């Protein structure tokens, strides 16, 4: 497609502005992590590596990262299994109440986090009599992580139809062989996309976590919030933020590369 020169310039400027709005604040955080000011003042009065050293020695920060990774990995794993199973049930089988269940599965992602948080808090403590712990956070996160896996997998199943599975059965493959050799490879990129999204959702979730975390369970977002306005801690928070940005680039890059060739096929 050919565009006129003014059109190209205009579109270029708009693109630059939007990307600027997204990425300039991130750069500010990056600069702040080297600032000598402890109160995030702008412009930074001077530069130092002090906070980077402190951040990597801060037991609280490292614990929080570990807790968040644990919660995100386990709730993503639960979501991958349950989300895939429910997608198959709703897409490949017809049964009473199918539409209702489809709605109920998607609902948690639309519910305000604060409602989910209060509801689960009540449910765990007063009805079930379960003390809040890291596992109550995992279960709470899994409720909305399932949705991203479910959405990705069911969309793939819907688009794909049953032709390939019929072809596999026709050629002599049983149900499990068909799943292993045909269905699962077709779902792989959908599972990866859904899984990454689920991981990201869980990793930075704060509202539901606040209501369902037991004492002593500090995920990274909670740690950041607690330390943000504490004297001398703000630059450490900036360091953590920069590390998180760098770390999150890696899976996104991998996901893009993996889904690249598949996109070309379509």
């Amino acid at each position, binding site marked *: 497609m050919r565009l006129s020169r003014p059109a190209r310039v205009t579109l270029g400027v708009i693109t630059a502005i939007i990307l600027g709005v997204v990425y300039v604040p991130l750069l500010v955080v990056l600069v702040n992590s080297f600032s000598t000011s402890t109160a995030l003042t702008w412009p930074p009065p001077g530069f130092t590596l002090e906070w980077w050293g402190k951040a990597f020695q801060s037991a609280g920060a490292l614990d929080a990262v570990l807790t968040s990774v644990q919660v995100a990995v386990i709730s993503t794993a639960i979501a991958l299994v349950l989300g895939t199973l429910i997608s198959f049930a709703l897409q490949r089988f017809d049964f009473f109440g199918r539409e209702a269940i489809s709605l109920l599965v998607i609902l948690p992602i639309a519910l305000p986090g604060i409602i989910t948080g209060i509801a689960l808090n009540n449910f765990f403590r007063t009805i079930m009599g379960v003390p809040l712990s890291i596992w109550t956070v995992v279960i709470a996160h899994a409720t909305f992580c399932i949705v991203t896996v479910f959405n990705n997998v069911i969309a793939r199943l819907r688009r794909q139809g049953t*032709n*390939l599975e*019929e*072809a*596999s*059965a*026709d*050629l*002599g*493959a*049983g149900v499990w*062989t068909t799943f292993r*050799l*045909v269905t699962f*490879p*077709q779902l792989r990129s959908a599972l990866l996309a859904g899984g990454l999204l689920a991981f990201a959702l869980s990793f930075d979730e704060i509202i539901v976590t606040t209501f369902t975390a037991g004492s002593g369970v500090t995920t990274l977002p909670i740690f950041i919030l607690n330390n943000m306005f504490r004297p001398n801690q703000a630059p450490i928070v900036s360091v953590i933020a920069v590390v998180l940005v760098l770390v999150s680039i890696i899976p996104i890059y991998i996901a893009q590369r993996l889904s690249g060739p598949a996109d070309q*096929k379509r």
Partner: protein
Amino acid sequence: MTDSQPAIRLTGLTKEFGAVTAVDHVDLEIAAGEFFSMLGPSGSGKTTVLRLIAGFEQPTAGTIELFGEDVTRRAPFDRDVNTVFQDYALFPHMSVLENVAYGLRVRGIGRRERTQRARAALASVRLEQMGDRKPSQLSGGQRQRVALARATVVQPKVLLLDEPLGALDLKLREQMQVELKQIQRDLGITFIFVTHDQEEALTLSDRIAVFNDGRIQQLGTPADLYEQPGSRFVAGFVGTSNLFDDARSQALLGRGGEHSVRPEKLAVSAEREVGDGVASAPGTVVEVIYLGSGIRIVVDLDAGLRVTALAQNDRRRLRAGDRGDRVFVSWHEADVVALAPAPPAVAGEEADAAASVA
């Protein structure tokens, strides 16, 4: 496996989807080694019969026998039939060779043997160079041949083909028709071919079953169906026909009932033709259509019937300027086919189907 058994025997086969009866008490025997076509408009039940034979659908009633063995309740992977799908259904994440070897792989045949056999199957469809490619890198015609190799490498007793040429352009389709016929002769296995293209069915088949409304309307060789259509529907669907209803038959043929005459059996001339067994009727030329190899002439007979005649493109041809000319349309009595009276309930539908083809 004995040769005296039919390859496929369907008995009272019925399939209902909710309130819709897609297949309605079909009885059918298909002989071993036969090239058999199921022909019909979309929604006529032909594809459902194929899917029932493959095992993708369970019949509501009736049985399916494969060489005398009842396979009605068996899963698709437990039946010695294979399918070439309309959209080919090649596995996109596997190479062409892996696709062809798939049926051998799931049967537990070792890597070396299955690679060898898959290569041989690819060679038989002239694609030995394409083994390492992905299906997405092949053309439509090549994919079609891969699907054929994949289905035949496991040596099924019966091969089912669901409109396999539907997605190809005309030239490629004609070329593939010849190849299919050759492959079927080479393998010597039974082919059951589903199509809505009457010309394709006539070209390829030993026998054809014409489907409509979930039932077989007529079963016979291509010549049987073309020369002796048994009903108004078959006369209209297999080739084109001039239909004479009861009143016109009385007026033009001197007897009641419905009759059909193929366009190429009608002659158009300026003078009334006379001869033994030749009848003719006067009319006015409405349209002259140049077809290349022939000319289609539409004439309104004075008896109140519009007929189409097909003439060879020779020197006596009429021109477009001949519209409005007074002519005589003549035919041999022997070429007039009496049709079985149509059941009144579906007569309207059949007339529609006939009209849309004509």
